[in-house]
């Protein structure tokens, strides 16, 4: 086995390709995510963002030596061992069974409890901590089937944090939330990431949120990495035109200086840009 010892790298992907029924979903993906960084995966619908994330979480089984976790092939990490390293917050999570919010967050402790054991005082304490941090402690006795989208999302984040992993993967964690929840949840995760030295890889639809929170962006187009790097390098007029096929204005966000993208609305420009 090739060992790619690089003490700074948390996740590395090399030459990852995937075809489903003759349609290439991912093609020659290569990327490196440093420890303790906050990385966004962006790209149009169908560009392979979720698939890539599912390979990194090993839900899809990658080919040997294409996905590496801390230098070792991810395939060599099994079951609970892997889920002590990587937590995942899936897209549009819906739970149909009447568990309470606390039951669900406690499930995050699963990889730390042996088959013959059960949740101890330490697990309960840690669950309480992350629930307080995510503002879900008040919801602990509510049934998850009765929670609003924003409440449920915070419960799922609490569960991921209860897992105590060093890497957190998120698939569009804020796409169903209103603007205040969007900011609240991104702030929460960013704060936790900086405090605890977490590595975060998140799929995002909103380019401005991506520019605001991510240190690095990976722009996917048709299953390939079109461009990756700092947000100001990736989010250019040219790249967005090439990948999304729309014209945009890019201005500097007045508060922190991040790029801010505004679509050029053809209706106001008096001409039709649809190709």
């Amino acid at each position, binding site marked *: 086995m090739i060992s790619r010892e690089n003490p700074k790298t948390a996740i590395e992907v090399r030459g990852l390709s995937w075809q489903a029924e003759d349609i290439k979903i991912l093609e020659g993906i290569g990327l490196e995510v440093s420890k303790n960084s906050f990385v966004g995966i962006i790209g149009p619908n169908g560009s392979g963002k979720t698939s890539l994330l599912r390979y990194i979480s090993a839900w899809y089984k990658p080919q040997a030596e294409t996905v590496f976790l801390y230098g070792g092939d991810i395939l060599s990490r099994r079951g609970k061992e892997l889920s002590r390293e990587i937590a995942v917050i899936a897209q549009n*999570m819906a*739970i149909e*069974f009447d568990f309470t919010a606390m039951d669900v967050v406690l*499930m995050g402790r699963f990889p730390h409890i042996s088959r013959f054991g059960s949740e101890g005082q330490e697990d309960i304490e840690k669950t309480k901590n992350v629930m307080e941090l995510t503002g879900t402690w008040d919801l602990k006795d509510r049934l998850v089937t009765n929670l609003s989208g924003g409440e449920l999302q915070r419960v799922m984040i609490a569960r991921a944090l209860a897992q105590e992993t060093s890497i957190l993967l998120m698939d569009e964690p804020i796409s169903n939330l209103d603007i205040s929840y969007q900011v609240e949840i991104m702030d929460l995760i960013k704060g936790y990431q900086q405090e605890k030295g977490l590595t975060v890889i998140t799929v995002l639809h909103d380019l401005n949120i991506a520019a605001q929170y991510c240190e690095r962006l990976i722009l996917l187009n048709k299953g390939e990495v079109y461009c990756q790097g700092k947000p100001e390098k990736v989010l250019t007029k040219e790249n967005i035109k090439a990948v999304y096929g729309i014209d945009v204005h890019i201005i500097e966000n007045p508060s922190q200086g991040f790029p801010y993208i505004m679509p050029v609305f053809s209706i106001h420009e008096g001409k039709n840009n649809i190709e």
Partner: protein
Amino acid sequence: MAYIHKKKRYRSIFILLTLLMLFIIIAGCSIGAANLTVGDALKIILQRVPYIGSILVKKPIAGSSESIIWKVRMPRVLLAGIVGAALAFSGTVYQGLFKNPMAESFVLGVSAGAALGGAVGIIFGIPGILGVGGTGLAAFLGALSAVFLVYQLGGTGGRVSMTRLLLAGIAVNFMLSAMISLLMIFNRQRMDNIIMWTMGSFSNATWDKVLLSAIAVSVGIGVISFFARDLNLMLLGDEEAKNLGVDIEKTKKLLLALSSFIAAIAVSVSGIIGFVGLIVPHAIRMATDPDHRVVLPYSAVVGAIFLILSDTLARTLAGPMEIPVGIITALAGAPFFLYLLSKNRRAM
């Protein structure tokens, strides 16, 4: 409240349910054509306890009462209890694995396979071994073969697709039922026996059957119980469960095999008793939690209670004639279940 905060309460209720089950076993032994008191039944059972029996009961009861209780009613009551526990417990596991409230062990062909095996056993007079009759043995093999067939047809290479399994199970069920009908048409003189067998009965209970099924079912229940938390996670979906560290493919295969095994044991000693695997787990879920650490053990005990009561009714209601116990479980169980359903608006 979360499960963790209700753990103590659930444990106390479980102990109460177990005591209730023991009482119903003893009471069930005392009810019948020759009426005995619960006290007599208790004495007869206690005096049989090895080593300390003679200390517990000063004046042992002998004669016909003793043999009615110990040789006839006791194995019958216990067998009903074991089968009830096995059916309800395996139903719980199936509903968890399939994330489908309609699932029970019978959807994968356990009942149809057992019925076909039983029919073949009755028609060809297969000899029995280990105290289990040839019919029971054939039913057991039929049940396991049917599940194996469904699994082979419904599985997709590596990953187990529950929807495909369910569909394959329905198709195999229909096919096997047609084969049973065909067998019966060509063996009309045996039709009665086959139909009575498929309706389920404990009238042929023996201590051998009790011991054999008790051991097999306890092993199955014991192993599955260690997967209660895995089953909870699997309710959230395969991807969630995998991301939290459940080895979903192995777990599914193991739990499907074990729960089918205990259901096959159950039908092979009793015939086909429907509905227990469906209503008992649901009634418990509605009354308590979806957490398998509650639903699994409660299902076993409540399933045992439910089937002992049903069988007691089956043998006494129209005595001396016996009503097949499957009729009682459906007639008594369905209205109760519908009542629960109408009262309870919670998601399943």
